């Protein structure tokens, strides 16, 4: 293998695939990143067997070939190089990669590319596609609500339901539920529903970045994996086996109180309240009165703080308590100027939506102060 590419491109590519390199593993090969020539490009790949990322970098390929190189060291070196041409030559005999960049010369002992796990690649003519912007926003609104508790595997994932013209993403951790719908670019004939690890979704959101092109989604049913094809990158992840709870039952069908309030103001009030609610429980009280909403936190040790917000309130007065972290999470993810809270009693779940945005909804369970 012999090729040259720009340091900038290689560095960016490595930072994308490097996220899939496991920090702890018993398989030495997984600590390596795969470098291979592919249709006149340099293909970079890394995997931890659950999550795999492949990225293509523009390159001038002289001769084809492949090798795997210890990822950490290679990434560190490439990042330290000047923004110039990098020449990479692999000595197939010794599996050694020699790198030249300006006055810098380096060589790495590699492992045979044959030993690297096969990372599935999407077939041509992907089944499903969504707008990158939609997906990016949907991920930011849904992923945070997934559970971190490994003992309930399905809840650590994001449910993705493809049906007709719509992809519905949902996640829940036992106390809150986020649901977001985004349009599919082409209708699909067969409904499909998979559970994707939230960690992989967070990675996907990061890689999508500012990309504009549609994201193609496909599954490899026999392998039980899902693939997201971006412009120069493919992310694939194992799916979580199991049955996701029927979240639709949890969404309250009616409410007696509607509060419309500025999103940024409410978020700011919650962050202020968090200062006082920062003990283990993060409890804040929302007092809903005539035309106003007061966000209040009280700490036995520190003191108390409250913010009164003007709000458009319909319905009776109410005091209800929530975990302020949950409120901050969801308010940060909504991007309409105003939000609406739909409430019933201090013990019934609350619903939070963006005003004028029917595609997203969040359900959060209240807290109770004992005695």
């Amino acid at each position, binding site marked *: 293998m012999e090729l040259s590419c720009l340091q900038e491109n290689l560095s960016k590519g490595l930072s994308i695939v490097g996220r899939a390199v496991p920090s702890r593993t018993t398989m030495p090969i997984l600590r390596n990143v795969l470098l291979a020539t592919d249709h006149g490009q340099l293909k970079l790949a890394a995997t931890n067997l659950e999550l795999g990322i492949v990225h293509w970098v523009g390159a001038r390929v002289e001769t084809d070939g492949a090798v795997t190189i210890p990822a950490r060291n290679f990434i560190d070196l490439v990042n330290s190089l000047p923004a110039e041409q990098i020449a990479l030559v692999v000595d197939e005999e010794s599996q050694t990669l020699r790198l030249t960049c300006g006055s810098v010369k380096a060589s790495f002992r590699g492992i045979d590319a044959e030993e690297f796990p096969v990372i599935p690649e999407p077939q041509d003519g992907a089944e499903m596609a969504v707008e990158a912007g939609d997906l990016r926003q949907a991920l930011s609104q849904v992923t945070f609500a997934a559970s*971190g*508790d490994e*003992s*309930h595997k399905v809840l650590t994932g994001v449910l993705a339901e493809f049906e007709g013209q719509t992809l519905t993403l949902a996640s*829940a951790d*036992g*106390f*809150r*539920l986020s649901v977001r719908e985004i349009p599919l670019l082409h209708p699909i004939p067969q409904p499909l529903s998979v559970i994707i690890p939230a960690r992989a979704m967070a990675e996907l959101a990061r890689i999508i970045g500012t990309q504009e092109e549609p994201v193609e989604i496909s599954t490899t049913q026999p392998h039980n994996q899902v693939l997201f094809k971006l412009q120069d990158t493919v992310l694939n992840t194992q799916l979580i086996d199991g049955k996701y*709870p029927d979240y639709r*039952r*949890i969404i309250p069908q009616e409410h007696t109180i509607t509060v419309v309030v500025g999103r940024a103001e409410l978020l700011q009030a919650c962050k202020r309240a968090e200062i006082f609610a920062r003990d*283990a*429980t*993060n*409890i804040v009280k929302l007092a809903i009165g005539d035309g106003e909403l007061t966000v209040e936190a009280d700490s*036995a*040790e520190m003191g108390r703080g409250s913010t009164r917000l003007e709000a458009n309130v319909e319905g009776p007065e109410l005091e209800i*308590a929530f*975990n302020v972290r949950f409120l901050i999470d969801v308010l940060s993810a909504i991007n309409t100027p105003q939000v609406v809270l739909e409430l019933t009693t201090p*013990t019934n*779940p609350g619903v939070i939506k963006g005003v004028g945005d029917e595609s997203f909804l969040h*359900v959060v*369970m*209240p*807290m*109770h*102060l*004992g*005695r």
Partner: protein
Amino acid sequence: MTIRLLPEDVAARIAAGEVVERPASVVKELVENSLDAGATRLEIETRTGGQSLIRVRDNGQGIPQAEVTLAFRRHATSKLETAQDLERIRTLGFRGEALASIASVSRVTCTTRYTEESVGTRLRLEGGKVVSRQSLGWPQGTELRIEDLFYNVPARRKFLRAARTERKHIDAFITRYAIAYPQIAFSVMHDGRQMLLTAGRGDVREALLAVYGTDLGNSLLEIPAVFAEPELPIQVRGYVGPTTVHRANRGYITLFVNGRWIQDLRLTYAVIQAYHTLLPVKRYPVAFVIITLPPEEVDVNVHPAKTEVRFHNGDDVFRAVQRAVRGTVIAEAPAAATWQAPPPTAQQVVHQRLAALRPASPQAPLPEIAPADRPRPSQPHTAPAFEAAPPSESVPPQARARRLPPLRVVGQVSTMFIVAEGPDGLYLIDQHAAHERILYEQMVSAWRQGDIPSQALLEPVVVTLPADDAARLEPLLPALQTLGMLVEPFGGASFLVRSLPAHWRDADPQMLLADLAANTETQAPSPVRLELEEMIVRRICKRLAVKGGQVLSREEMDRLVRDLEQTENPRTCPHGRPTIIQISLEQLAHQFGR
């Protein structure tokens, strides 16, 4: 059978059965008489465990010649005049029964000289009847020789144990009084051998050393005087063992009320409760607790032997004892044996020297020194100043932070222990025990303040348990609700969990309930109402705490150590095992031969 009045000697012997149970009770009555007589020196001598001889000699005020005979009549006493006096008894004795009872079951020689008379009296009695009386020269005070105890009560004699056992009972009694009355010189001889000798200089520590030996005596912590409530002064003093000292039974818990040794299950429990979570399971503390309260607040006229008392405000006394003991124990803690308080200021040093010079009066040694400038003892085993409030009260954060020095995490050993560095050496922290302590205190303190926030579940979780577990869980449901966990029966052996305590919202409900239901019956019922919730909290904390074998990140370790520094009792887990071990720099240097 006709009914008739019993002859006096028979009645006396029956009454004697209540007061004089064994030689130790004779010693008790005689020693209490001597103390009431204002003695400062007491000699006690026994032979064959008190069966053949008990001799008690004091330098008290003695008995006037004219009253000696009367002293041996039943219901004759100098300590009480009217029935009102019973309401505020200041003397140890008052019933006027002891001497008469003892005399009726033994041969007694009483030799005495009243302080204001120049001639003494010797009176001999057998079976309660005077057999001889003579006048003689005698130093001030009284000597009673009790010979052939129970010679006329074969039934009782048969039940006496071996001389060694009876000696043990006598010693158990006298040693306690020797500590409670450090201003009195006690000398105890058994069969010609000196068993105990206290100096009577008023130094309690000295008496402790004489009784318990150097190691135990030195390790005991002094309870500084505290008052439970200003309008009801209950003073609790004494000495308690640190958490590193424990015994297999409650026998080392001694209670004195108004100078009287009493046995009271509830107060004993208060002491044990004060060590709650600080001692290993099924181990009991060493404690010597002296309670002083106005005589009218306590009724000692409950039992002829007067080892039982009734308090008018039992709960106040219970709380006062528990607070004082716990405060003392917590202010010091096991690993603190090597963690020195900051060096005393110059003023404190002066106080300390003054205190050393001043012969401490045991009656009121502490209240006269204001808490703020009380000398800080330099020896690590003595209790630091008692600024630390009792546990149920809110402790100022500064006082709490004092408990552990600031630690820097060095790393983790064998995925079980955290290695940390402090200003004075190396600290090893058991990650599981430490986390248990943190969770436990967070929860219990929230629960004590009465506001455990609970987090409702998006969807109730159904938990099904084995039938017998379910039956055990059912009675716990109300307690669980006060802890913020709303659980409802859901038919059969199933339960519906609707909310979790906010502190534990990451817990798995199925697992929690299964843990709680498992073998709750092995928990002994306790007189304290709060116990059930604490037990639940303890169990849940055990389950939720990080386990040994769990790899912790640097941040997690830092957090754990910071949180541990914030706890009130950082040095033991809720089950009483240590959380932290310290190796001082000196120890390290010594090991390396530097």
